[in-house]
């Protein structure tokens, strides 16, 4: 049996490469350690300017309440909106909160007063999130005031209800927990499609393929010898990444671990086969690298990794059905966040397996020993 020997040769070459073994360690380490800390959608520091036109005890309390929040930082109090606007223009503040004149008096007599919130929305995400936070604090304050007033007559007339959201699975809305499974998929897609893509075409460039082609090695053996090492490397990287996520961030999948490996194997098979197909059709490593980069960019952006698939236009949602990364991403997030079973993910698994089979056969057929 020649296959184990062919695989051994691939590993020897891999390990003699100065860069590759280093990448296998450094890449998961930096991605799992650094990226979740920097790629976050939580808004932590909101600088705001106050315009208090009332200067009453009640308006002062509101200012204190806002500045007491860990996410809010008071830049300064200004006599008018125009003055406060200057702080936004200089990018010192993200938000202006203006309390109307006679705020306290209106509250006591009418049970109703206005607070204006103006937010810098150049960064739309940050703008809407920080407005949301402020609204919460204001609602909280008004509820507090009502309680203190002892449910005055004005309230009983309107029905009032509190919405208390309960966040399922990711209870603290921790962005890291959402991103880490996605980053694991990213590690796999990078290593396990790039390296196979450069492998066969590399042998073409070096001329070694000529010598291999005159041997009686069959196509299936040859392609398997190129595929299996990357599946092994992929599973090693995944294990390392899971370990790092636990060590650094304290995350451990809620669902069964073996399910992650099952999906990872199917996914790596799909991506490595794609890499080998690209390699077979390319005549230089440059061509292969650019081609696989193209696939990776499309797969990543259409996988739901950064933007949810449900918010894509319909045509692009349909296109994601042929994106292997979509299924892997869904499975990874589900297994990390929910106590899933295989049954609930069998559709994703089926799709990955069909793709793996098609691409694997394609990889074998497209490899030609003569021309």
């Amino acid at each position: 049996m020649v296959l184990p020997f062919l695989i051994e040769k691939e590993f020897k070459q891999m390990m003699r490469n100065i860069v590759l073994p280093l990448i296998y360690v450094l890449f998961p380490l930096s991605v799992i350690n650094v990226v979740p800390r920097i790629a976050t959608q939580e808004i932590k520091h909101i600088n705001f300017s106050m315009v208090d036109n009332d200067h009453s005890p009640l308006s002062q309390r509101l200012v204190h309440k806002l500045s007491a929040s860990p996410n809010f930082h008071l830049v300064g109090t200004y006599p008018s909106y125009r003055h406060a606007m200057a702080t936004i223009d200089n990018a010192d503040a993200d938000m202006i909160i203006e309390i109307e004149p006679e705020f306290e008096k209106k509250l006591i007599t009418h049970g109703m007063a206005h607070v204006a919130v103006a937010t810098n929305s150049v960064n739309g995400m940050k703008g809407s999130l920080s407005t949301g936070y402020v609204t919460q604090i204001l609602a909280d304050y008004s509820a507090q005031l009502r309680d203190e007033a002892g449910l005055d007559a004005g309230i009983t007339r309107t029905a009032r209800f509190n919405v208390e959201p309960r966040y399922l699975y990711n209870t603290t809305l921790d962005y890291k927990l959402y991103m880490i499974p996605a980053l694991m998929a990213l590690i796999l897609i990078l290593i396990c499609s790039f390296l196979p893509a450069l492998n066969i075409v590399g042998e073409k460039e070096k001329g070694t393929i000529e010598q291999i082609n005159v041997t009686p090695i069959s196509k299936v053996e040859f392609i398997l010898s190129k595929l299996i090492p990357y599946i092994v490397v992929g599973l090693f990287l995944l294990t390392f990444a899971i370990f790092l996520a636990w060590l650094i961030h304290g995350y451990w999948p809620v669902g069964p671990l073996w399910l992650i490996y099952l999906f990872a194997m199917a996914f790596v098979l799909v991506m490595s086969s794609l890499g080998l197909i690209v390699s077979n059709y390319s005549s230089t490593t440059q061509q292969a690298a650019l081609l696989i980069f193209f696939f990776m960019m499309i797969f990543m952006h259409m996988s739901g990794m950064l933007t949810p698939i449900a918010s894509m236009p319909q045509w692009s949602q349909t296109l994601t059905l042929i994106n292997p990364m979509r299924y892997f991403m869904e499975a990874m997030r589900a297994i990390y966040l929910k106590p899933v079973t295989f049954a609930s993910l069998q559709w994703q698994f089926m799709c990955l397996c069909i793709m793996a089979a098609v691409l694997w056969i394609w990889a074998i057929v497209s490899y030609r020993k003569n021309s």
Partner: protein
Amino acid sequence: MIVSVHNLKKRYRRVQALREVSFDVNEGEIFGLIGPDGAGKTTLFRILATLLLPDGGTASVDWLDVVRDYKAIRRRIGYMPGRFSLYQDLTVEENLQFFATTFGTTIQENYHLIKDIYQHIERFKTRKAGQLSGGMKQKLALSCALIHAPRVLFLDEPTTGVDPVSRKEFWEMLHHLQHDYGITIVVSTPYMDEAMKCDRIALMQDGQFLQIDTPQAIIAGYERNLWSVSSDHMHQLLGHLRQWPQATSVFSFGVTYHVTVSPDADANRLRNFLAQKGHQHIDINPISASIEDAFMALSTTRQG
């Protein structure tokens, strides 16, 4: 005929690499393909090594068709491409082991075949193939091509870029393989001096054969008188020689000119002719032809 080729054709887009080439190689013979770069030697090798499909004609190796029985042929031939194509990041021993295993054999089983060659490089067996010198790379490549005991060896320009001493050693090894093991060898070379070391040669140019015969017969068949001429004004000499009516062809050969002359030509008359043109130290020697002379003559006849 262990290698038999009939009307083989191959075209790459605009270039006709092979134009209906036919030849046979006898068992146990060293057959040389002699010709300049671009003559079609590599194309011919790649078809015989089952790496390239011909456009027309047939070829068989060890009585097996190169298109139909390519799998069986691969077990019976050793192919050494013109470009060094072993794994440069594997060691000498690992390369040999690798090719032995891919052919389902072991180094020990066929060690006797490669012993004489491998000896030269065995002390470097833990060195990576990429770090070997040119001559040693060729010896390793030959060892790898031989490790599965092939019946026919195809060597595509094995001595190109190799120093003269290693070249000589390499040819001694080929003769040794031929005599002791009866291995048939088809070898190409752009060096005309190596042609003499083959049993038979085919002179090749522009995808076709000019002549196939033993090197001796080719030279003998080149019956025209050949003179080597030199003087103190070599630059002008070429033009003046071409003006002399009895010179049929003149071409530069090292530090002298080789002039083919008609049978009735007289060396003294040429001497006088050149002296009139102002040449001194005129040296005219009748010489016996070499393969290169034959090749030059044949290729100019074709073009003319």
